[in-house]
């Protein structure tokens, strides 16, 4: 196959863009890829899917005890009940934080992440350092995220895979007894649902 000569060891941005467009053209020519469908996917993950979805799930669990139980027993279906489904949301498990147990999620092998409820992962989630250290020294990693846990709190680290993806149900903060679901959802952060953050009380 003929190929336009490129400078040796070229890793400039122009080079990578050329590789992407060359591959896209090859796949379009084979009839495997539709550029319009790709545009729609990019729009979905840039603008439509994100941690607000997960925050809705968490706030519902905090305000509806039956929902919380269902969510912990069958996360995939309970999340779909609220309308969140799709890629990387097929096999979900929700793990609940308590005063005795703190859960955090990693994907040690690549970057498996529950897209329908959190969107695409942040850069640090994909980085080698988090993926290794979340397992080897979770307490130190949490401290770097500003989470200081009491010594007697057990940390459980969950390794997401293509088969199962985890979402943390954080603890409901004190001082929110009068909050409704919408007000609660606004307090829930992405990091708290990965388990590298805690949901702050509204006063703090």
């Amino acid at each position, binding site marked *: 196959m003929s190929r336009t000569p490129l400078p040796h060891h070229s890793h400039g941005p122009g080079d990578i863009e050329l590789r992407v467009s060359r591959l896209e053209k090859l796949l379009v020519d084979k009839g495997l890829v539709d550029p319009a469908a790709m545009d729609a*996917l*990019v729009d979905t993950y840039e603008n439509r899917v*994100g941690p607000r979805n997960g925050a809705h799930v968490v706030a519902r669990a905090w305000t509806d005890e039956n929902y919380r139980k269902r969510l912990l027993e069958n996360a995939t279906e309970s999340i779909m009940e609220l309308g969140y489904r799709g890629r990387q949301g097929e096999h979900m498990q929700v793990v609940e934080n308590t005063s005795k147990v703190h859960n955090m999620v990693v994907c040690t092998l690549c970057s498996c992440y529950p897209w329908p409820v959190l969107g*695409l992962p942040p*850069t640090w989630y994909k980085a080698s350092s988090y993926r290794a250290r979340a397992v080897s020294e979770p307490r130190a990693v949490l401290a770097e995220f500003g989470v200081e846990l009491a010594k007697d709190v057990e940390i459980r680290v969950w390794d997401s895979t293509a088969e199962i993806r985890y979402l943390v149900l954080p603890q409901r903060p004190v001082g929110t007894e009068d909050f409704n679901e919408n007000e609660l959802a606004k307090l829930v952060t992405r990091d708290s649902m990965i388990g590298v953050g805690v949901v702050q009380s509204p006063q703090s």
Partner: protein
Amino acid sequence: MTRIRPLPGQPESGGEPVFDAPWQARAFAMAVHLNEQGVFSWTEWSDQLAGLIKNHEMHAAIHNSDDYYRIWLKALEDIAKDMK
């Protein structure tokens, strides 16, 4: 505390763009689209990607989205090569 909030219904990604460059978005969408078309299962994709990540991490770390999506693109290129 004042902080610029996204419009209601928009993802809150901690102020970080979902993709650093348009090519990353294209590479991302290509893999998802090929999976939707049944060219490979997501488990096959994850295995392919994880294998390349493992090789990469024997000599260098993934620090950012650029590092990560370069490996992602390599996984796609390898799959396309096998299809020929």
